[in-house]
């Protein structure tokens, strides 16, 4: 390689912090994925309904030579959709609140994109570098600190190389994620609950009854399902004593009995099921699509939106799905854990190879896409809930269950003195989860029936109602 290229690579790796290029890659990857998730959604919908789905628009779009007649299974469809959204008339009805109407979709997508920041993509990357310390530098470690990429930290002491005395080898580590926040999962919960503002503001600003009702429903939905979601996350946080997603992933990087990976889904299956239900509700999708409700609210909060503004709402919904699915994977499926990708036994998140870090990110991403497929599968399988059923599921079932589960986790951890890496503790948690499911099954038959909302009213004077009409009394 010519020395010029080496200099450029050296300058870039020293002066561009790793989180910046991870951020750029993540951002474009997520936005691109969202477009293709829409294609996947349409494909899944049509497969469930015994159709083939969009399979006409190839990447040649009928104009690019050679490939213009290739269909490619509909790969060009998302791009064609995007072009359509941009070129459509951006219609704004009379009587809307102009500022809020424009702000709402932007606010929603902004919050969702911000929330991808703390996802732990690939563990910790460790690298080595040989530096030449100038004679003017007095403190070698301090000088070495200026020669490593921004945002990374030096491990150990600089080791002298050779006989000249001014060359040192330094080892540095950086975390393979955008931001290593110590409030991790709390940050995601906080930011994702802000996305409901986009829905509410959009519904309010549209000056339309349907949109307004959609916004109200979204609020009620979000408030109800935040609680069991937070509580089921808390069960995991309690187990490892940290909010950082990368630490939680790291704690899952070993095997029980040598074969079963120590993923939390095996020790906390009930928490996993509750978290899965809650992120479905959080995404405002069928069977929890109260805010959109095509059947009775004509699209709900986005009834009045068209063109790119509508597309932003749409993108935010799918990007939110990516984030929540990624959190699910990190919390319950060991994040990027995959045979062959773990580091040394004393620090399994560590890797000295960039290739392995990227492979881990890909594994994490593929796991996320599988969870998103489950989202779509559920959407096209289950009928919608009525609003009172939705509330009942949260307040009468999920919240008591998650509170009891939290208590149970705390008790098991106290018995084992908080030592969760012990395989017996995990087995006890699993048994306790199963026991709780059985207890809930028994208890649920005893608790009083739900209030009879939407009960059948017997029309006065009909053959079902023996009460005579006032006219018949005389």
């Amino acid at each position, binding site marked *: 390689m010519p020395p010029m290229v080496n200099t450029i690579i050296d300058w870039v790796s020293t002066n561009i912090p790793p989180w910046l290029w991870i951020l750029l890659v993540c951002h474009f990857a997520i936005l691109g994925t969202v477009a293709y998730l829409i294609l996947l959604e349409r494909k*899944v919908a*049509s*497969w*469930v*309904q*015994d*159709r*083939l789905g969009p399979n006409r628009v190839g990447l040649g779009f009928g104009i690019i030579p050679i490939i213009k007649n290739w269909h490619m299974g509909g790969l060009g469809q998302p791009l064609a959709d995007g072009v359509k959204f941009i070129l459509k008339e951006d219609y704004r009805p009379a009587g809307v609140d102009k500022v809020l109407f424009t702000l709402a979709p932007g606010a929603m997508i902004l919050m969702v994109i911000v929330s991808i920041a703390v996802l732990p993509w690939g563990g910790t990357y460790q690298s080595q570098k040989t530096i030449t310390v100038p004679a003017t530098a007095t403190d070698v470690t301090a000088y070495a600190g200026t020669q490593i990429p921004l945002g990374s930290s030096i491990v150990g002491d600089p080791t002298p190389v050779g006989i000249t005395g001014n060359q040192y080898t330094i080892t540095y580590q950086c975390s393979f994620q955008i931001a290593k926040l110590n409030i991790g999962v709390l940050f995601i919960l906080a930011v994702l609950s802000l996305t409901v503002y986009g829905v509410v503001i959009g519904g309010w600003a549209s000056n339309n009854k349907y949109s307004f009702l959609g916004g109200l429903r979204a609020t009620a939905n979000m408030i109800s399902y935040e609680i069991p979601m937070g509580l089921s996350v808390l069960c995991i946080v309690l187990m490892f004593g940290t909010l950082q997603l990368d630490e939680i992933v790291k704690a899952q990087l070993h095997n029980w009995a040598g074969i079963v990976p120590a993923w939390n889904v095996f020790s906390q299956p009930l928490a996993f*099921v509750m978290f899965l239900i809650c992120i479905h509700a959080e995404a405002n999708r069928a069977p929890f699509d109260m805010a959109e409700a095509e059947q009775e609210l004509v699209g709900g909060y986005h009834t009045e939106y068209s063109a790119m503004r509508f597309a932003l709402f749409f993108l935010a919904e799918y990007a939110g799905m990516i984030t929540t699915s990624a959190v699910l994977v990190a919390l319950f499926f060991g994040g990027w854990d995959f045979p062959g990708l773990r580091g040394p036994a004393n620090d399994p998140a560590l890797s000295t190879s960039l290739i392995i870090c990227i492979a881990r990110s890909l594994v994490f991403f593929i796991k996320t896409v599988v969870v998103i497929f489950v989202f779509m*599968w*559920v959407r*096209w*399988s*289950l009928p919608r809930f009525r609003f009172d059923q939705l509330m009942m599921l949260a307040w009468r079932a999920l919240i008591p269950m998650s509170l009891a589960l939290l208590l149970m986790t705390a008790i098991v951890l106290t018995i084992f003195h908080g030592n969760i890496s012990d395989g017996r503790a995990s087995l006890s948690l699993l048994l306790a989860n199963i026991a709780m499911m059985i207890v809930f*099954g028994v208890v*649920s*038959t005893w608790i009083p029936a739900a209030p009879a909302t939407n009960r059948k009213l017997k029309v006065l004077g009909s*053959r079902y109602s023996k009460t005579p009409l006032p006219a018949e009394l005389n």
Partner: protein
Amino acid sequence: MKDSDVIVLEEPKLSLGDQFYLPQVLIGLGTTMKHMFNVVLRGKDRVVQYPEEKREDLPVEKGGMLLKTYRGVHRLNKDEEGRVKCVACFMCSTACPARCIHIEAAESPWQDREKYPAKFDIDELRCIYCGMCEEACPVDAIELTHVYDIVGLTRQEMIFDKSKLLRIFDETVAKEPM
């Protein structure tokens, strides 16, 4: 109707599995997964890719359609000398339940008949393709062809006049002789 004739159905009681909801959800997911597998593995056999594959080309077991009995767009037949066969008797427009045939008669320029249609318009959007016109025609002048893929960009375009109906005859006569 007496009260004893009325069958009152009670809501079925939910079993424990139904109350827990999740077992039933899993059964439902299994059903849709079965459909997904069927389409992804055998989809090409089950779905007709319309513009490339047409139902009339397929055998009946694979969802084929018998075109011979299909009633599509109309045509006005011509006789051996290439003249329009219609004698403007108004039988078809009288029989038409959708009132979509509009004929204006004029004196025939030929010796063998008294009248011929100066104007013959069919509104293909109003037509219900019942075939009563071809039943009513005494000289077999109006016929329904097997062509079903007619399109137009405006409503005006879909009102077929005499020249267009005669042109359809020219186009279809080879495949569907009178």
